């Protein structure tokens, strides 16, 4: 991987004198993704699915090709198992919403405590509305979930288990494949939030045998405004629609509605075709570099960052003690200095990092820390950037008078 060439493909990184270490929030976009918007609007713009004329067919193709491409990207059997939404949050809300009709009072939902609020609150809401029991699966102090604890937490009434592939605070990969097996042996569906893993490692919904899987395009070099939901066909086929309106029906009269088949059944209204088209370019880009190369470089960078932080005084790293478990995400605290002040001092030096509870407040409460600072990497980051980050990190306490 020629890092100079790679960085040249990201205009923002190329043009601005900043160190961008907030990739878990959103990644920067390569030229091919940015150019895709004008490509779509200059060449294919019509309302997909509606017109009989050639241009509308071209728009439909541009959009549907990406559905096929996405199916390939996550290794889904059938493109109709891919639903486009606005973001991961909408994908997860959609899932909770359509499942809620199949659940009855007393049924149980199990949610991992480290979930982002978007895979936490939708479940809490349907539990409240339908008087379901909701239980939480806690991780240990290093963010690890054990197979035993999952087995123990499942009961006969557990209908859904919600967990992320990788927590956006801890960075550890959860053993989704094993968890799915355990869930299915218990007749429990598993709903996986893959938002933090899709840019960094292969996604394989068949091998992992997950029932639902959600992510956002913007965290994998794609545009904002595109979310993806994979759902097993046999489930989506029998579940009710989410939003109702145009495009998602076969027949409507005053008396009767017949819904369209998958995937249109879940895509009411005019779709975000241009962004989806650009998302296709992002997947192409990632595929061209390849997860082997991406993974290798990111492991190297994560290790370098982790070691640098470990060797800095008065820093407390959240989660695993082994850098191999961090997958581009290192959350931390600086003794005596509030995370927001830490982030502001970094900002002063042109380093973009995140501070707060990272939309994972239940996890922070479990760990007993109100908020943390998070540095998160992508393969386009460099050792030089990390060196500069560590230098500023080591000066923070003295800049705050400690």
């Amino acid at each position, binding site marked *: 991987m020629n890092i100079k060439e790679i960085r040249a493909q990201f205009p923002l990184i190329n043009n601005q*004198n900043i160190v961008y270490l907030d990739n878990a929030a959103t990644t920067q976009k390569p030229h091919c993704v940015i150019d895709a918007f004008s490509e779509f609007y200059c060449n294919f713009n019509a309302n997909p699915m509606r017109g009989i004329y050639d241009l509308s067919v071209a728009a439909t193709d541009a959009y549907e090709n990406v559905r096929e491409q996405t199916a390939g990207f996550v290794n889904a059997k059938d493109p109709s198992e891919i639903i486009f939404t606005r973001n991961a949050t909408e994908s997860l809300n959609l899932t909770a919403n359509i499942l809620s009709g199949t659940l009855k009072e007393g049924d149980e939902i199990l949610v991992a405590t480290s979930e982002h609020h978007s895979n936490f609150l939708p479940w809490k809401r349907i539990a409240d509305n339908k008087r379901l029991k909701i239980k939480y699966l806690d991780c240990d102090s290093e963010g690890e979930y054990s197979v035993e604890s999952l087995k123990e937490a499942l009961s006969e009434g557990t209908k859904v288990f919600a967990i992320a592939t990788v927590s956006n605070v801890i960075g550890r990969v959860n053993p989704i494949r094993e968890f799915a097996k355990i869930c299915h042996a218990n007749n429990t569906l598993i709903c996986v939030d893959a938002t933090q893993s899709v840019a960094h490692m292969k996604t394989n919904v068949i091998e992992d045998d997950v029932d639902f899987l959600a992510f956002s395009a913007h965290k994998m070099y794609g545009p904002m405004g595109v979310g993806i939901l994979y759902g097993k066909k046999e489930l989506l086929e029998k579940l009710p629609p989410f939003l109702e309106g145009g495009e998602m029906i076969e027949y409507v009269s005053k008396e009767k509605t017949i819904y369209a088949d998958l995937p249109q059944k879940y895509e009411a209204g005019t779709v975000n075709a241009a962004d989806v088209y650009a998302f296709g370019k992002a997947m192409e880009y990632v595929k061209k570099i390849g997860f082997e190369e991406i993974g290798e470089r990111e492991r190297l960078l994560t290790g370098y960052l982790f070691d640098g932080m470990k060797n800095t005084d008065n820093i407390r790293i959240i989660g695993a003690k082994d850098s191999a478990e961090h997958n581009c995400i290192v959350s931390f605290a600086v003794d005596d200095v509030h995370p*927001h*002040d830490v982030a*502001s001092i970094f*900002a*002063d030096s042109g380093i973009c990092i995140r501070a707060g509870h990272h939309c994972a407040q239940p996890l922070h409460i479990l760990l007993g820390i109100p908020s943390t600072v998070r540095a998160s990497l992508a393969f386009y980051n460099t050792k030089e950037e990390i060196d500069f980050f560590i230098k500023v990190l080591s000066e923070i306490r003295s800049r*705050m008078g400690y």
Partner: protein
Amino acid sequence: MDKRTFYNEVLIEHNKYPTHKHAMPGCCYSKEGINPSCGDDLIINLDIKDGIIQGGSFEGDGCAISQASADIMFDLLTGRSVAEAKELSAIFSRMIKEKITDEELERLEEAGALMDISHMPARAKCAMLAWRTLDEILLQKI
């Protein structure tokens, strides 16, 4: 890279060695102020007699900006009338959100050291927390 920092000496001193951070049992007015998104959580205590602020204190946790801002606020407002306190608080708020004149800046004394926070919209509410809570006391109770 722009090295301008609003973590100046005044702010750092007040954060590290606050004069007014303590409990105040039996004071006239207490109110909690919270910034839910950043977890700043302060209790503002205020003693007012004959329309004059006799003293005040704050308790609780937060970032350096919210802590220093609270401490500086009590330095500035102790001994002032309620009317004057309201006026200074309005000037402070305008300093953070918009712009103020040099004369107004002078009236704010050390609180003027927080002026640069206006460049950082994400942190403005940290600087405002103590003042906003004080305003609520002054508006509601008096």
